């Protein structure tokens, strides 16, 4: 075979003076970059295999290692960066589609970075969250336009029955990541952290391991095109059901879990044989139209006896506003929008980087459309797709979201360094792998604590920002685009986002 022309992307440097030959790097690296030659008493590095995950650097007890982008480079060219050259070489060598993980990494505009927030000065006082109540409680579900509450002996009494609602103590949930894509320990960490934080995590399309039924009140169970692990008990184990039509990282494509990842536990949970590829069809083969979707929504509502909200998740595509409107009219209690930067365990690189649109634009368009049609109350709006920090969340809520899903950020809190190799099943941080040698690297106790800390920290920051705006309840921020201003966007972008430019 022809010599591979793919160059090493990372350079591993070892300070031989500091290295004590403990071989921790060798054991930590699941990509087998490091090896030890006993005769020479020397460590060797195969840089071609290095993915830049930094696991060895972190665990080297003497700090002898550093991993950095490779110094060796091709001649710089505006149209032909090494990324483009490398992809061509890979395809020339394999004849295959390129695969990637996590969300879009191209430089599509990140609108969050062009939006700034408001604060109170003089005319209304800012509110100090250390001294005053600051409310983040959020409800997900269909709301009627009006409610009948009457006073009986001076006390309010509810005469209308409301459709089922999820109660979130903070407007952030853990996004859909399936058992199979992520490990048992990570699933457990997410479930326990969601429970501890009064919010939800989402099973993704991989079913629900029996051990996690106990976290049901904080679980959103998914029903995707592969129907993996979907049965009546599963549907009723969660607090809500989400029909997954699409995913931001790969709109128009179903989820793929390679057979190598399907061990006994996953096989039982997904209800498929051990070692078989779990390939979700691109569409749901019982949903070829909006009227078919309506049937599935109501079939699921029947299955859960109308006691749990049933929502629909779609990828943010060009027609998202009209599609979301149809979904609400079809009876969904919530709509989930997943943007271009939303994560994935495995997606064709070209799809990941070029199909769909940033969540900011889709969210603004969908919220506005639902309001113009007078049906915004009829469903909650959950958004996902690359939320990096609490101000991204605040901006999303101000644009009109009820709540957000965080996925990649949650995994980062468990150690992920966004090396984008989830699809290999060799995650050196033990997150997106089923190899027992690797999965034990995530300790569910510590994982739960780190995830809980993350939600707590972001919630504190959201309260601080809300107080600064002179608002003490999150519902007064939701859809309140007056608290947003844009910097450096053109008029079309301002119009779609429905915000004014800073200074206006």
């Amino acid at each position: 075979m022809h010599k591979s022309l793919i160059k090493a992307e990372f350079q591993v440097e070892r300070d031989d003076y500091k290295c004590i030959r403990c071989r921790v790097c060798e054991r930590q690296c699941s990509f087998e970059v490091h090896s030890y030659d006993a005769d020479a008493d020397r460590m060797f590095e195969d840089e071609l295999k290095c993915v830049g995950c930094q696991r060895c650097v972190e665990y080297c007890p003497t700090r002898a290692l550093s991993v950095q982008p490779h110094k060796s480079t091709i001649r710089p060219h505006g149209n032909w960066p090494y990324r483009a050259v490398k992809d061509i070489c890979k395809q020339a060598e394999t004849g295959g589609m390129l695969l990637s993980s996590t969300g879009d990494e191209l430089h599509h505009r990140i609108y969050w970075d062009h939006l700034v927030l408001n604060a109170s000065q003089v005319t209304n006082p800012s509110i100090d969250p250390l001294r005053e109540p600051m409310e983040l409680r959020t409800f997900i579900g269909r709301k009627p336009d009006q409610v009948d509450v009457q006073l009986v002996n001076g006390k309010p009494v509810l005469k209308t029955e409301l459709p089922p609602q999820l109660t979130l103590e903070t407007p952030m949930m853990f996004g859909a990541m399936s058992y199979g894509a992520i490990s048992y320990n990570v699933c457990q960490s997410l479930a326990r952290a969601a429970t501890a934080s009064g919010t939800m995590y989402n099973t993704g399309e991989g079913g629900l391991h029996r051990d996690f039924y106990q976290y049901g009140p904080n679980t959103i169970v998914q029903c995707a095109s592969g129907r993996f692990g979907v049965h009546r008990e599963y549907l009723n184990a969660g607090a809500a059901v989400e029909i997954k039509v699409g995913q931001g990282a790969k709109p128009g494509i179903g989820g793929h879990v390679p057979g190598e990842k399907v061990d006994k536990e996953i096989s039982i949970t997904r209800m498929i044989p051990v070692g078989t590829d779990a390939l979700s069809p691109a569409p749901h083969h019982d949903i070829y139209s909006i009227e078919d979707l309506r049937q599935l929504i109501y079939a699921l509502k029947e299955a859960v006896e109308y006691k749990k909200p049933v929502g629909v998740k779609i990828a943010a595509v060009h027609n998202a506003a009209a599609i979301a409107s149809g979904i609400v009219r079809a009876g969904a209690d919530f709509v989930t929008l997943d943007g271009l930067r939303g994560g994935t365990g495995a997606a064709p690189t070209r799809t990941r980087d070029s199909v769909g649109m940033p969540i900011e634009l889709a969210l603004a368009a969908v919220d506005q459309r639902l309001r113009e049609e007078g049906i915004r109350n009829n469903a909650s709006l959950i958004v996902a797709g690359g939320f990096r920090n609490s101000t991204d969340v605040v901006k999303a809520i101000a644009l009109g979201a009820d709540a957000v899903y965080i996925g990649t950020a949650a995994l980062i809190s468990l150690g992920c360094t966004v090396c984008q190799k989830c699809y290999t099943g060799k995650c050196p941080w033990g997150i997106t792998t089923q190899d027992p040698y690797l999965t034990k690297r995530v300790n569910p106790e510590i994982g739960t604590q780190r995830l809980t800390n993350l939600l707590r920290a972001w919630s504190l920051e959201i309260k601080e920002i809300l107080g600064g705006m002179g608002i003490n309840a999150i519902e007064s921020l939701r859809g309140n685009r007056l608290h947003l201003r844009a910097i450096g966007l053109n008029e079309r972008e301002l119009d779609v986002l429905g915000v004014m430019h800073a200074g206006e």
Partner: protein
Amino acid sequence: MHYRFEKDMSACGLTGFISRNRNRVDGEAIMSSICNMDERSNGQGGGFAAYGIYPEHKDDYAFHMLYTDADAKEATEKYLDRHFLIIEDDELPTRKTAGIVDPPLIWRYFLNVDEEVLHMNACDEEDYVVNAVMFINAEIPGAFVMSSGKNMGAFKAVGFPGAVGRFYKLDEYKAWTWIAHGRFPTNTPGWWGGAHPFTLLDWSIVHNGEISSYGINKRYLEMFGYKATLMTDTEVTAYLFDMLLRRHKLSIEVATMAIAAPFWSQIDHLPEEERKALTALRQVYGSGLLNGPFAFILGHKDGMVGINDRIKLRPLVAAEKGDILYIANEEAAIREIASPDRVWMPTAGEPVIANLKPEKDIVKEAPSCIKV
């Protein structure tokens, strides 16, 4: 898509009183009360609402109109003529007053709605009137509906409230409910329509504060056909009350539980039935929650309500003397016109509610206790 986001922020002074026995008094007392708080306004707007002033027209919608020019008047009259029965129309009486400059055309119409038209449009009479008000304000350039209720009217202008009252000859009107407002806007369109009270049908509202939730309150009400054209947060408050009280038929007590909702920390500790009701109100009317500092007085055909924001970021005092309830930002404004039997400070979010006695229940008593 077109977004209009301008918001006019203003601080202010407000006062009002109501005789539950429907004893009508002229406008001198309310003018004295609001003038006591001139410190809280800056001459950029003053206004009044009065209830019970048109007993001879009590079944007609009294439209108080402001026009910037004759074209606006002509277009509006054409519209009114097409959609209403015009019972009477005249220029709203005014007198030349120092401090009131460049008045627009100010006109008054007593209107009735043809049953036939309602039937053809399959429309509730009050919704029909609301739609007309929304249309005139949004679509006819230079025309503005100052008030549109029955047996009530709003009087507003750019100027200190005392001068505004003199200008409109309020000393010649008799009302059982008077509400007044002096304005201190922080950015000034200097526009008569921008003064308080804001009204719709017989709702009138004067407001001191700034609604931080304005952006969503406005978008929320737009879903239900309300067009917030006046660039102020007070306007959305008026529309919000119209929706909750008239359209959704909530009682005033319940409506205030939605717009100045108790905190979850309070709700969570209530008995189940109350907790369920308050939770449902917050779930359904979350976008109608008013956030940020406010004190306001709402006048309506059956009474008057005063309320503060959830953490009382604006002053509000209530007092009682005989059948009269007073509400004002400052106690001094009440003591200026009465020696009350009882004065109290309502807590955050706690409404002060006074309702008129039904006419049949009223025994004629001694005249009201207002000293002027």
